[in-house]
């Protein structure tokens, strides 16, 4: 085990796979511009390349390389930059295996940061996770710890499907224990970050530490929250969430996206359909307020869910129902 910042853990996952598999490529804008770049030094320009600012071509090239047998990882930096190339992400990469009747595989990773609520204003702060999760053929990964960042990246690279790997920018420098050597985290397996019997909280990305902090404050009042981090939202480990709800009967979903663009809404629908008999109170969703993320600091904080809103939601869900 080593203490590593989240961002270094992602790199460790990419290195782990590039060392063992010569078919893994890594490319994107503003990387590999000198021979000293650690990935260039280790694997050479054949596999590690800088690209122009051409997201459609970058992602499209990854698709073609993947269909031809390689495993590209595209460094996109910010999830919004995928919006420039949305056809490639949503309507090319996940379609080819299906449309070819299973003849091709499209193993690629689209690595992008998201949710940079640190004064980046309206166009670099979005939480677009839900946009990707409903597309058949696409997998969507949202690590919240350094260890998962490494293990999920490695699993994403080995996966034979296109994977959108979304890492939260505000976790970039968070340190955590990261296993040395080969480390893989399975897809579709949620992690219970904190056990509790009174209420279930489900959160991803930066909302996980916020929910854990809220849970600690609630514990001081004698309220025990169970905090679940799905880690991958496609595939989604609904079973772990339903099991927890069966125990607690109360569910709070925390999501950094605006009200009608959340993963939370999709989980709420599934729990309402499959776990209704367990619920003792209506599900509460804590989401961003319906606005573009503002620049000014107090306004930004007002729009995005914080500990206080999570705590208020837990109190409300405990008061409601039977």
């Amino acid at each position: 085990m080593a203490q590593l910042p989240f961002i270094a853990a992602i790199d460790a996952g990419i290195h782990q796979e590039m060392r063992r598999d010569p078919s893994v490529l890594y490319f994107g804008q503003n990387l590999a511009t000198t021979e000293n770049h650690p990935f260039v030094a280790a694997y050479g320009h054949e596999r590690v390349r800088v690209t122009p600012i051409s997201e459609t071509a970058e992602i499209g090239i990854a698709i073609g390389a993947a269909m031809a047998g390689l495993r590209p990882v595209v460094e996109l930096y910010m999830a919004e930059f995928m919006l420039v190339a949305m056809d490639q992400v949503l309507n090319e990469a996940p379609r080819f295996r299906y449309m070819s009747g299973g003849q091709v595989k499209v193993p690629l990773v689209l690595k992008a940061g998201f949710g940079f609520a640190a004064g980046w204003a309206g166009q670099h702060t979005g939480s677009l996770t839900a946009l990707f999760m409903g597309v058949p053929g696409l997998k969507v990964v949202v690590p919240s710890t350094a260890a998962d960042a490494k293990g999920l990246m490695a699993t994403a690279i080995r996966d034979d499907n296109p994977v959108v790997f979304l890492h939260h920018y505000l976790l970039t420098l968070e340190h955590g224990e990261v296993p040395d050597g080969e480390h893989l985290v399975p897809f579709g397996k949620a992690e219970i970050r904190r056990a509790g019997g009174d209420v279930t909280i489900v959160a991803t990305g930066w909302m996980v530490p916020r929910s854990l902090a809220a849970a600690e404050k609630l514990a001081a009042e004698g309220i025990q929250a169970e905090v679940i981090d799905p880690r991958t939202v496609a595939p989604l480990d609904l079973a772990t969430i339903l099991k927890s709800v069966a125990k607690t009967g109360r569910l709070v979903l925390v999501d950094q996206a605006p009200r009608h663009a959340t993963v939370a809404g999709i989980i709420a629908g599934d729990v309402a359909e499959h776990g209704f008999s367990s619920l003792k109170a209506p599900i509460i969703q804590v989401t961003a307020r319906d606005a573009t993320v503002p620049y000014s600091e107090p306004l930004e904080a007002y729009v995005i869910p914080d500990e206080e809103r999570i705590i208020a939601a837990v109190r409300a869900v405990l008061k409601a129902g039977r």
Partner: protein
Amino acid sequence: MSVQPPNAERQIWIFTHMLRVREFEERVKRTFTEHPGVIRGHTHLADGAEASIVGTLSHFRAGDAALATYRCHGYPLVLGSDPKAMMAEIYGRADGLCKGLGGSMHLTDVKRGFLGTSGIVGAGIPHAAGAAWAAQIRGKGEVVFCFFGDGASKQGAFHETLNIASLWKLPVIFVMENNGYNVVTTTAQEDANAANGEPLAIKAKAYAMPGVTVDGADPLAVHATVGAAVERARAGGGPTLVESKVYRLSAHGNIIAPPGVPLHYPEHEAITVFGKREEYEAALRGDPVPRFRATLVKSGVLSGAKADELAAQVAKEMDTAVSFAVKSPFPKLESALDNVYA
């Protein structure tokens, strides 16, 4: 570098495949009247582009790859795909090349190097560059053939990809089949180069790669032009943009209509939209298939009788494809959930 012209045997091979593409497309078109309702959605035919398709793919070797657009019936026929499986795919049947999951716009035959077809204009161009990166890494002189239309050259994907392909010297041949129409819009209405009397191949200059224009109705001219581009790519010289001028002899596609309205192929847009019947009739007089037949008969490569014999064989092959496909069962319902993920 000069490309050896195809010998007599190879010229007959080219002619035979041109016939096969034409006869296949004729049967797709006829299906709308002979088997109404069997073909759904939108189909796009390659008639008129046979010389360009076959002349280009006459350079295809094992290990190479080809990628194309929704107008994709011609290429796999030349690469060796089974027309029975292709027609079954177009009919949405279990024996289809893609198990009925793709249809007319998405024919794929990976075993024969036909890697994929995107139905979104221009979107497949970077895929070809990605496959070319893989070929470059393999280092065996393999190349990728990237087919698209003139309309795609106004997409960002085209420009972004040509820039990177040239920068990285990727072994790819960009074959732009310029048929003069972007659906129902003439090239001069939507292309600044065309509007100013320039060939579309001039776009290559912006990306420091060769750009050449060729008569896409002449398979020997296409063979020579593409051959030079292929030699360059195999030798590590990088990509070439080939503008192959063709005239599509059918409309852009069958009519677009909701279920219940029988689908059919309307007349070409030159007639239906622009009222230029003479333009279309001139194109028919230049039809590449009879034109190449006449060339071969004149040069003594092929006798008229032998040409007729080939045509009869091909007609039979494609009739068989129709009768096979129309009898093929629909796929099992649960198969709709197969192949979503690998």
